[in-house]
């Protein structure tokens, strides 16, 4: 059974040193309750893969502030209210790997799809190409990119059934469906658990095969100013 009664049960067993994929783009789709659960759960030395590196003092920023994160892999850490990350970074207490947003998505998809590596045109000729293998194919230059696989994914969706089928809401979908495929254990918070058969099979976005644990959590929205 995939449904968990509490957030604490949903995040149980996450090991120190895990790579954790965290959904959301800014605040939309951010799994706040699961992140708070992870803080309580206590795992440390984590590598976090997410588009941003936290806003204000909530969500990812709170996890960073609690000192649990060794490395962040993201596309856009610098935001107007990313002061928690900024301070850790400037004082050398956190590692950062900046990855173009499309590579972040595609590298996780590759992990989910069993692709060993792929040649990608993004970042050719830029500082982010440093150290990467290059190849010219049909006259165009590409960089070799490797999969990003998670031990755990923490994502937020709109509705789930107990088979783990998921639908999302508007642009809160963002990284969720990709991360669900790329982690050994995918944990999902949803606003609503619905009976099996009530999600139209044509409209399921993440089939249950990618989902390990589901917990219902109240939808809460942090409207942080200036989030980018």
């Amino acid at each position, binding site marked *: 059974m995939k449904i968990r009664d509490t957030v604490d049960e949903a995040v149980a067993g996450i090991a120190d040193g895990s790579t954790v994929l965290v959904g959301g*783009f800014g605040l*939309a789709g951010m799994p706040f309750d699961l992140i708070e659960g992870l803080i309580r759960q206590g795992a440390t030395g984590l590598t976090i893969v997410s588009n941003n590196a936290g806003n204000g003092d909530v969500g990812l920023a709170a996890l960073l502030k609690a000192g649990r994160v060794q490395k962040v892999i993201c596309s856009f850490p610098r935001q107007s209210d990313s002061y928690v990350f900024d301070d850790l970074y400037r004082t050398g207490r956190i590692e950062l790997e900046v990855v173009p947003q*499309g590579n972040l998505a595609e590298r996780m998809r590759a992990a989910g799809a069993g692709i060993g590596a792929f040649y990608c045109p993004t970042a050719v000729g830029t500082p982010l190409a440093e150290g990467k293998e290059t190849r010219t194919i049909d006259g165009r230059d590409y960089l070799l990119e490797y999969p990003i696989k998670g031990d755990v994914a923490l994502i937020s969706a709109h509705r789930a059934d107990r088979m783990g089928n998921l639908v999302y809401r508007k642009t809160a979908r963002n990284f969720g469906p990709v991360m669900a495929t790329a982690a050994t254990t995918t944990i999902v918070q949803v606003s609503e658990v619905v009976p099996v058969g009530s999600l139209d099979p044509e409209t399921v976005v993440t089939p249950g095969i990618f989902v390990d644990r589901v917990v219902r959590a109240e939808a809460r929205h942090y409207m942080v100013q200036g989030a980018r």
Partner: protein
Amino acid sequence: MSLSTDELAALVARDIPADSYVNLGIGQPTRVADHLTPEQGVILHTENGMLNMGPAATGDDVDPDLTNAGKVPVTELPGASYFHHADSFLMMRGGHLDVCVLGAFQVSVHGDLANWHTGAADAIPAVGGAMDLAIGAKQVFVMMTLFDKQGRPKLVPACTYPLTGLRCVSRVYTDLAVFDVGPGGAVVRESFGITREQLRQVT
């Protein structure tokens, strides 16, 4: 007379072909949307997973689950669609967008783009979707002032700032002139309150 940001945005909007799929970068380029006409039938893409994005949301229309790439609440137009990040960047990187409009620190006369990093040693690097947009759209328009605050031209023989993409920009819209850029160098298309001679000294 040099152009205001709004006049520049209107100029860019005018040059976007009818029925195009377009991504407007964060910052000034988002103003282009205000000048697109319904008759143009332009469909806006936002990289966080939506096509046919509408204007910014206000009041009761604000929905935290519906934002643009700048994380500003927006609205959806009829015929919209939502998709996940891998599909959204497939659109961008696979050459499916007709036009993207980006801001820039510098553009070279050959179309190199620098818009993600000032090169300052203490800056925290942050790239977002800039490099994916730069190499992916069929046409990349840049919208910027021709000179920076120190009076140095931002259209340059070769970028000194860290690059976002190589040979990717096709046209540069500035407050003083519009240029085509590419393998053959920069060509002035129109100018505003500046002579061709003055422009030649710049580029």
